[in-house]
């Protein structure tokens, strides 16, 4: 049966349908929904393992890397330890004690024989390097601050998460509609 159209949803027939669905069918739909959520989570965890990053996909939040990336672009990251950090790479990092990840380019590196590295970053669209953004007294970033290296990107798509963040009502509306669709759709 095709999913009900919007006018149908507003009519009483729709409500009769839901009442007619017996308990078994409802549980079945709920389990279906749970399976979709679990699969999505497994794919996300799998991505974390393959890329080595705790956050393999991030949304660009600011315009500091324009014109390459704009707010709402989606970035795909890897964080393999074997990949050395080199100038020119786009890294996503967190400043100690702050939650927001920053996407900027590596401007300078100093690496010791044993692999210890300290590096400086700068946003393409910023006039100065990021030293002013780092923690008080911190002059360099280290490997531990890195969430990942940007390897690929897709424009615009991430704007949905930004909207959901800035307008919680929008987030609830999206979740409500999704839940409604899954529960009502009959295979």
């Amino acid at each position, binding site marked *: 049966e095709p999913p009900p159209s919007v006018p149908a949803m507003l009519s009483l027939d729709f409500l009769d349908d839901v009442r007619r669905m017996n308990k078994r069918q409802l549980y079945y739909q709920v389990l279906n929904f749970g399976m979709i959520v679990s699969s999505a989570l497994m794919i996300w965890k799998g991505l974390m393992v393959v890329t080595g990053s705790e956050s393999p996909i991030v949304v660009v939040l600011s315009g500091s890397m324009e*014109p390459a990336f704009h707010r709402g672009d989606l970035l795909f990251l890897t964080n393999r330890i074997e990949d050395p950090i*080199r*100038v*020119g790479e786009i890294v996503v990092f967190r400043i100690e004690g702050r939650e927001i990840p920053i996407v900027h380019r590596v401007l300078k*590196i100093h*690496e010791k024989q044993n692999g210890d590295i300290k590096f400086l970053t700068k946003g393409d669209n910023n006039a100065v390097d990021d030293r002013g953004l780092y923690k008080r007294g911190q002059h360099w970033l280290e490997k531990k601050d890195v969430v990942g290296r940007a390897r690929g*990107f897709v*424009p615009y798509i991430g704007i949905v998460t930004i909207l959901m963040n800035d307008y919680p009502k929008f987030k609830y509306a999206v979740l409500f509609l999704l839940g409604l669709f899954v529960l009502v759709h009959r295979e």
Partner: protein
Amino acid sequence: LRKNVEDFTGPRERSDLGFVTFDITADILNGKNAFIFDWNVKQLFLYLSAEYSTKNNALNQVVLWDKIMLRGDNPRLFLKDMKSKYFFFDDGNGLKGNRNVTLTLSWNVVPNAGILPLVTGSGHVSVPFPDTYETTKSY
């Protein structure tokens, strides 16, 4: 790719600071030696970086200059007497007398969507730094 350099170092807060002027003549092509701005190339982020080794650090890389080249710009560079955009500070005093500082031109290809490759241009130039510091110089 041709660069020539006039250079000297000066100590500031215990670290060496290098001054480099350069020319760049380059024709940017893609991996198949064709025009770089194909249907999926939005822009290029070009950067000139200096790479060298010191007593303190096995590997140092410093970006001296960068430029964003948009789709529609001419992929040929003919720059003369350029000064570095960013301060060339070493982490210590490793520039003095360093004969093995190599300048390379590289670029990040930014697609409309897809992979973000980093490409290093063929050709590089070695810049030897003098053994002494300059005390004053108008730059």
